[in-house]
Every structure is written in C-alpha cells, then in structure tokens.
C-alpha cells in the first residue's frame, strides 16, 4: 500500500513501532470493524479506531444524544444534543480522520437483522449496555465465527474479554444464563464514573487493533476485571465450556431464527 504524505505523518507513531510498520498500518487501513452502541463504550472505541486509521467503521444505535450522556460519551457534544447518536459520532469521527469510511446505522440490532448487518466485517465490538443484546451479539458472532471484543461497565467496575470463536470461550461459557430481569440494576439506579467507559473502551480498541495486526496476546481465554476504586486489574482464566449452548460440543443454539432475547432491561 502506498501512503500519501499526509498519511505518513498521521500514522508515523504507528509506523515506527517494530510490531506495526507500514505493513501493519496497511492492515489497519483494510480492516472493517462493526461497533454496536454509540454510548459510553462505543464512543471511545470508535474514537481510537478512527484515529488509528481503521478503513471501515460501522456503528449502530437507535438512540438520540441527551445532556446526561455527555459526562462519559466522548463522541457527542453539547451542540449535538437531540441528534441521532450515530450522526453525532459521524461528525466527530469524520472531523478526526477523513481516511475512515464511517457507516452510521440508526436502528436497533435484533436477532432478525444482526447476521446480515455484521456480514462482511472482520471484527465486532460489543458496546451495548444490556444483557439480552450481549447474548444476542455473542451468539451471532459464534455462529458466524467472528472475533468479538466484549465489555461491560457498572459503577466503578469494568470487565473486558475477547471472544475468538472456535479458539477460546464465548460469553455463554462465562455466564451461562442471562440474569433474571430485576436482579441487575436498571440504568437509572446504576450510575457510572465517566472515565470508566473510556478506560474499558480503550482496552477494547486495543484488543481490536491487536487482532487486526495479529500481534501480542488478546483476552481470548480470560476476563480482565478493572476496579477503579481499588485501582486493580485482575485477569481471570476462563475455560471453554464443553456443554455451552452455542459453542459447546452439542450446541442447542444453531441459528438466530426464533431465538428469544427479550426481557425487561433498560435499553438506555
């Protein structure tokens, strides 16, 4: 790949790294990443992947920017309140790096549309904020063999894991069943320190770039837990579950047809 003068300057700190170089930067430029959610996690992931020069970034979210989002959702601003989040993010990312082809999808991801939407993308990022969507994304990625950078945040704690179907665990191996609605706090009760999604989303973006580059170790058989109050990172081994409903030896979930991911969870 031939870089323009501008690209050589823009990506010079990548090109200098022995693990990246011009060849690695060309891989980043060819990559296609699908980000689910334009909220606390999706914003920093999209921000860093745009800055890094990922060739194509799709972002899906059907929500609108609200004032209460701005304490943590760094792609949005006071001026974009009321706008669809994906359009607000598009404006930010296009201003940051015109090299990136940004695809804004103002809709909700569902069992009916997910496989068609993520088809053709190399890596999926889960920036959703509720359990039904998290299981839905996991199942679709396992069925399609797509790497998934998954994360969750609550109050002062964040969790990150990377799912490489067929190689390591999946989200169902980690948490077999969805917790019953009502057991997990709703968005209104939950609260989150604004920096937390930045840190956790930053880790997800790093996992995505390492998958693209094929360098280093990703969290493919482990869960990383960050406690912001104690300032600790804990890396826990996660075995693959041979009886897993979607990635086990005898899976019972073999398609997204008729799957039920309902539940009264807050979708904020």
């Amino acid at each position: 790949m031939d870089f323009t003068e501008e690209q050589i300057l823009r990506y010079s700190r990548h090109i200098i790294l022995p693990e990246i170089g011009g060849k690695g930067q060309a891989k980043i430029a060819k990559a296609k990443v699908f980000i689910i959610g334009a909220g606390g996690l999706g914003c920093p992931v999209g921000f860093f992947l745009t800055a890094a020069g990922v060739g194509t970034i799709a972002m899906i979210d059907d929500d609108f920017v609200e004032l209460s989002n701005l304490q943590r959702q760094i792609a949005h601003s006071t001026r974009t309140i009321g706008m669809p989040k994906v359009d607000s993010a598009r404006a930010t990312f296009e201003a940051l790096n015109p090299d990136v082809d940004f695809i804004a999808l103002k809709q909700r991801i569902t069992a009916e549309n997910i496989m068609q939407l993520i088809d053709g993308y190399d890596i999926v990022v889960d920036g959703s904020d509720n359990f039904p969507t998290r299981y839905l994304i996991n199942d679709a990625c396992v069925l399609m063999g797509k790497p998934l950078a998954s994360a969750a945040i609550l109050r002062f704690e964040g969790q990150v894991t990377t799912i490489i179907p067929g190689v390591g665990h999946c989200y169902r191996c980690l948490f077999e069943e969805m917790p019953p609605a009502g057991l997990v706090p709703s968005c209104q009760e939950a609260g989150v320190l604004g920096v937390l999604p930045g840190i956790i989303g930053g880790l997800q973006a790093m996992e995505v770039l390492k998958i693209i580059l094929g360098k280093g170790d990703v969290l493919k058989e482990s869960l990383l837990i960050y406690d912001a109050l104690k300032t600790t990172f804990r890396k826990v081994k996660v075995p693959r579950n041979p009886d897993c409903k979607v990635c086990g030896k005898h899976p019972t979930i073999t398609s997204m047809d008729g799957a039920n991911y309902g539940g009264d969870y807050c979708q904020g």
Partner: protein
Amino acid sequence: MDDIIPNKKLDIRGLKCPYTFVRSKLTIESMEPGQVLEILLDYQEASNSIPKSMEDHGHKVLRVEKINATEWIILVRKEND
C-alpha cells in the same frame, strides 16, 4: 570499504525526527532481505538514532559516514521481513 553497492538510495535531507526514521523504515520494508539501502541525511540526531533504530528492528548497519560538514550516509542491510 567502497565495495558496497546499494540496491536503493533514499534522500531524506531536510527531514527531522521522527520522519527521518519513518521514511527509512518504509523504504526498507519495501525491499528484499539481503538488499542494501543507502540513506543520505543532514539531521545530526538522526545519524545516531537511525542506526540504533535499524538495529532494534533487526537490520544490519554496515556503515555510518560523515561525508561533509552537514551530511551523513548510512548503509543498512535488510535482514528480515
């Protein structure tokens, strides 16, 4: 010592760090292992840093020569892909 014939020549006079190395690295990446790159530069700091960075990347620095008051020539052999 004048028997090394470079496969490629790169003129980065006028460039400063880190672009001196960025240019050199992109050029050597495009070459085959065993081939020799000649770099002509006029940024003094880079006459030290480029050889070090090239060694860090696993390449062989064959020669660093000050050819006049303000210019240097560095010869590097590509060792790996």
